[in-house]
């Protein structure tokens, strides 16, 4: 059945949301605008910058290049799900300790990419860290402190 609107059920950070969405709605807008989970950012909106990166069914994706209807039935993780209450994840703490952000706009995407990397490869080489963050652009830091933070979190 082709339709311009569908009811979808998506679990985000453990909470299941059932909503009617237009087929044309991007996943990032569903997360930010419909569910008010504004941690994930819209940067370029062309799939280049990675600020909207989230994990869908265990896989890192750019949520500006996926429709919300495509996530129907999926489990999504966003940056809001990383900390345990006030307790930052090891990676988040490492970002803080290494001053791995300046303006912070890219940080949610960087954290999700690094989280996905460390899950699949808990002790990545330096090259593997760089390759794991290839889809995320940061215009402030020159990447070095981000790299150091991920490296420290993997040790």
């Amino acid at each position: 059945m082709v339709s311009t609107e569908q009811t979808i059920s998506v679990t985000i950070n453990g909470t299941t949301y059932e909503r009617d969405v237009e087929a044309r709605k991007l996943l990032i807008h569903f997360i930010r605008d419909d569910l008010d989970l504004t941690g994930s950012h819209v940067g370029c909106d062309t799939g280049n910058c990675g600020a909207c990166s989230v994990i869908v069914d265990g896989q890192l994706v750019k949520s500006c290049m996926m429709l919300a209807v495509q996530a129907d039935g999926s489990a999504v993780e966003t940056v809001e799900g990383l900390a345990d209450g006030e307790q930052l994840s090891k990676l988040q703490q490492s970002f803080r300790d290494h001053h791995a952000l300046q303006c912070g706009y890219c940080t949610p995407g960087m954290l999700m990419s690094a989280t996905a990397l460390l899950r699949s490869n808990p002790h990545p080489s330096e090259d593997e860290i760089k390759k794991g963050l290839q889809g995320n652009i940061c215009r402030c830091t020159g990447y070095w402190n981000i790299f150091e933070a991920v490296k420290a979190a993997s040790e």
Partner: protein
Amino acid sequence: MLLREVGYARPGSLGEAIELLAADDGARALAGGQTLINVMKARAGSPDALVDLGRIEELKGIELGADGTLEIGAMTTYTEIIDSSEARARPILGTVCAQIADVQVRNRGTIGGNICTSDPTNHLPPLLAALHAEMTIQGSDGTRTVPAADFFLGVYMTAVGPGELLTKIKLPAGRNDGFAAVTLGVEGTCIVSAAASANGSLTIALGCVDAVPVVLTPDSAEDEAIRAAVRAADLDPPSDVHASREYRRHLAEVLAVRAARQAQGS
């Protein structure tokens, strides 16, 4: 960005998908969406309806035959190819897929989407042309197979017709393959690419120098014979902000030799 209003369906079977595509001229297949969704944002394309192929099991998976033949479902992602032990029977596949864009795009983008887009800068059209791949296309009238050399018809155009779907890609056995490209930044978009296969006689396919991959069969595998074959093709690539026509012609020779050397293990 808000896309133009669009219909959406997520069929559970290949037959249903073909039916939906055949029923509406304005319907388009949605594979991994890593090109199509951006095309829709830019209003460069505005399908009336999207037929999402994401949950059709028949279109997924990699099978390795006893004779070393690989059959890859069109909806297999780059990441699945990179991680597949079966796909290592043709090692160049994983090597090239690992050079496409970034982790996020590789997790969603599919082999079928890459070749059906038939963008001259894509990695897989020249690779599959050099490797003598065979594409299986299914429509309401049945199934047909098309060799890679006849699959790519033009920029954004392939042998997959209205109401049809690419279902799988078949690759013969072989390990002596190569790929070389000059890209925009590390692992970025190709400015010129070359793929080579030296299983039996040498085949080279050049990307980004014409609307479709340019397939060459040099007289010998010597560097000079390869360069001569590229010159004989009398390429007329476009000039753009990244490279002039002349520079692309130069790169085509250099990269053809590099890909051929890799294929021959030298």
